């Protein structure tokens, strides 16, 4: 019996619906719901970390200020940096990926829906731990990179650095699992016909980023665990008196820390490559070049870490190598910028809607950040500017310009897809201009302050340094940024209820997420698409359809990696509380380990129980699966 499209949609609505009430909310494995929560949560941490930054700016606004003391100030910049890097920048990009990638490749679901829910809860609990600790006056206090010996047991008594080390464990665990999910979804669940050369650039960017995560994050997890055990059970990894080495930490940290920058900003570049063609009304120029540039950037990113350690007295030959590698990375970045300029130049009808404004802001800010980066890549100059406000300016130009502006472009671009309604364009323009102007007022003066000798992480300065005017300017800028974020939040809250209805494809974009209704149902596609080009929605003919997927059980199509030919139908597991329970157990173990090593033992047992519960198949699921099961052709003659 063949059902009509409407009957199919109605059946899918029933099959994919979550249980009503709180239980359904807590047990959902819908990648849209998890993705939205993930984005909102990461944005919440962005706002909190931003408020800490404004507080720091208020303290620095005038000389000899006594608004806050040195102890709180140390916690402010440490929690600010830690939260921005580990709770906002990486997770929010991954959150966008979790929400968008399945739809962009034409799949009904993410590869591992329960794992996806688990990595969300882990991030949430980790973030809550950090901010609760901060409120209890046990916030980390020695910077976002937590160098021993300062962070070690001898110089940082109390639990502040243990909280930091465990936050790293939380956030990296979440990121690692998310990366595996994104890679598998993008490589194995693409719409038939979406060959490797037809994958949207944002999806490529997220896949490359995810591979970087898999190679970079284990290093810092290992390092922070060593730090924790040094503090908790007196191991000696970083203690020079017993054969340890504090620089070991710097190697482990920056082997992760430098790729981290590209982990944050490659997805931003992917968003630009996705948004720009839509508003230029033409295909992106140099698809293959852009893809290769991202891959080369990812590769080079692993050869740069020592440039964070130029002032630690390593051998000069190594230094020259890392200087060259640092400057080399400007080449693929430059290549991408030229590809985008060519895309803009070749378009007949550039539309300056709000997402495009943020992209323009990116060009301006990121190029300045890139130029100061080339300057700092040189060891000689870096030795002078190390730990000065010049570096603060540089890293904010790179990260806010390279990641946050494209991300805000992305928020404005995909908001209609997520909610079905447009953001107010007027408010969006206010957001942009306040942010853009405020940002430059806040951070440009820091270049000058750095050159004048103002060092990082000082809680005050005396009036005879002559730094007062520029610091005041910078503080004003930070308040303007705060105002722009306020406008943005107001815009989101208002528009999601009363915004102009958007329709399925309001920007006339080319990629598959726009082939779903806005907002998309949990299964995204009644009949997943079959594509025959890189811009399926710009073809004269509508994309083909995958028919014959079951409608009475959650299922999606799995395809082959190299040619996206249909391989098998994946029957998905049902929603479950298990990811939440497992996340609670893991959080108990991590937080308990701050206080006693036994938490690792008892917590580990609890985690094991939760994971067995997670894995153990429910009878009802098994019956449903058996009813739909079609065995693969297995070779029964194969010798054992």
């Amino acid at each position: 019996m063949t059902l009509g499209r409407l009957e199919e949609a109605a059946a899918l609505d029933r099959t994919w619906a979550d249980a009503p009430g709180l239980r359904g909310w807590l047990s959902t494995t819908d990648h849209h719901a998890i993705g939205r929560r993930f984005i909102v949560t990461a944005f919440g941490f962005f706002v909190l970390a931003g408020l800490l930054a404004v507080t720091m700016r208020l303290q620095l606004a005038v000389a000899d200020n006594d608004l806050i003391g040195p102890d709180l100030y140390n916690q402010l910049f440490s929690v600010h940096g830690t939260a921005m890097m580990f709770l906002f920048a990486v997770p929010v990009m991954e959150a966008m990926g979790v929400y968008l990638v399945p739809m962009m490749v034409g799949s009904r679901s993410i590869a591992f829906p329960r794992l996806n829910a688990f990595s969300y809860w882990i991030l949430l609990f980790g973030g809550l731990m950090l901010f609760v600790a901060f409120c209890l006056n046990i916030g980390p206090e020695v910077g976002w990179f937590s160098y021993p010996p300062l962070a070690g047991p001898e110089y940082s008594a109390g639990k502040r650095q243990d909280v930091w080390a465990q936050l790293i464990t939380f956030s990296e665990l979440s990121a690692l699992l998310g990366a595996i999910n994104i890679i598998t979804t993008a490589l194995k669940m693409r719409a038939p016909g979406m060959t490797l050369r037809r994958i949207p650039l944002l999806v490529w960017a997220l896949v490359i980023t995810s591979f970087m995560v898999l190679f970079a994050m284990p290093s810092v997890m290992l390092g922070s665990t060593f730090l924790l055990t040094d503090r908790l059970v007196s191991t000696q990894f970083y203690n020079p008196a017993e054969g340890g080495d504090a620089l070991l930490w710097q190697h482990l940290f920056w082997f992760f820390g430098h790729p981290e920058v590209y982990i944050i900003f490659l997805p931003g570049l992917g968003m630009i490559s996705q948004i720009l063609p839509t508003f230029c009304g033409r295909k992106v120029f140099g698809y293959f070049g852009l893809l290769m540039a991202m891959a080369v950037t990812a590769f080079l990113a692993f050869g740069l870490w020592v440039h964070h350690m130029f002032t630690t007295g390593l051998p000069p030959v190594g230094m020259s190598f890392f200087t060259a590698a640092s400057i080399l990375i400007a080449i693929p970045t430059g290549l991408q910028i030229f590809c985008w300029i060519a895309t803009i130049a070749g378009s007949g009808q550039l539309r300056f809607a709000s997402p495009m404004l943020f992209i323009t802001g990116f060009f301006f800010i990121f190029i300045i950040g890139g130029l100061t980066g080339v300057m700092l890549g040189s060891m000689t100059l870096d030795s002078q500017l190390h730990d000065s406000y010049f570096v603060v300016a540089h890293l904010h130009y790179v990260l806010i310009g390279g990641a946050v502006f494209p991300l805000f472009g992305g928020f404005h671009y995909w908001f209609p897809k997520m909610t079905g309604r447009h953001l107010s364009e007027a408010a969006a323009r206010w957001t942009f201009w306040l942010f853009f102007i405020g940002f430059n007022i806040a951070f440009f003066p820091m270049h000058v302050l750095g050159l004048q000798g103002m060092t990082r992480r000082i809680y005050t300065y005396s009036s005879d340094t002559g730094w007062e005017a520029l610091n005041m300017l910078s503080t004003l800028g930070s308040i303007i940024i705060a105002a722009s974020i306020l406008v943005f939040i107001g815009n989101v809250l208002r528009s999601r209820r009363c915004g102009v209805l958007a329709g399925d494809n309001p920007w006339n974009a080319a990629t598959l997420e726009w082939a779903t209704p806005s907002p998309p149902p949990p299964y995204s596609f009644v009949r997943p698409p079959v594509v025959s080009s890189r811009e399926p929605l710009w073809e004269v003919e509508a994309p083909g359809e995958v028919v014959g997927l079951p409608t009475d059980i959650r299922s999606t199509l799995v395809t082959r990696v190299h040619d996206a030919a249909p391989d098998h139908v994946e029957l998905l597991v049902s929603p479950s509380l298990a990811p939440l329970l497992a996340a609670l157990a893991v959080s108990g173990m991590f937080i308990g380990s701050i206080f006693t090593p036994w938490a690792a033992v008892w917590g580990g047992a609890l985690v094991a129980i939760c994971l067995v519960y997670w894995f153990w198949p429910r009878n009802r699921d098994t019956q449903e699966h058996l009813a739909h099961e079609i065995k693969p052709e297995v070779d029964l003659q194969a010798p054992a």
Partner: protein
Amino acid sequence: MNRSIDVSGLPTYGYGSRALTWWGTAGMMLTEGVVFLGAVAAYFYLRLHSEQWPPYGESPQLFWGTLNVAILAVSALPNHYAKKCSEREDLRGARRGLVLCVVFGVLLLGIRVFEYVGINTTYTGSAYGSITFALLTLHTVHLLTDFIDTVVLAVLLFTGPLEGRRFVDVSENCLYWWFVVVSWIPIYLTIYIAPRLL
């Protein structure tokens, strides 16, 4: 022309890299492989910055660690057998294979206790002791994890509920056991042989 594709006749699971589970397992192996690599790198980094290695005391006793190398190597056989049986969906064979794997797991974990006893250092005494313990513990955690996985799968194969995909799980669990076996070789060489040679 854009065609439609009817997928109603496709199988509902597949083995090896066709399965999503394979990709999940491969991702975990990659991640954990990088963790091992980082720990081994840290070991030699610390070695470079010490004059004597081990700084005091003797190198770890060879016997138990070497015994575990041998037993791990032999455990690859029932593991391979369980994998092959599961891929043929031979339930009896898979059960047999997994039970043998569980027996090997118990044996390996038991010997691991003696390895800890014979390591001739403490984790608090020196950076050497810390990193040696870290390497051994990292591998033990993997041993233990895959042991528990194997027990759970073995019980499932006897009690049900069963569907075809459970055989994929068994196959991927066996793949992961290969990782536990192979990763022990560089870690064994680092813990037991490196202090004698360097």
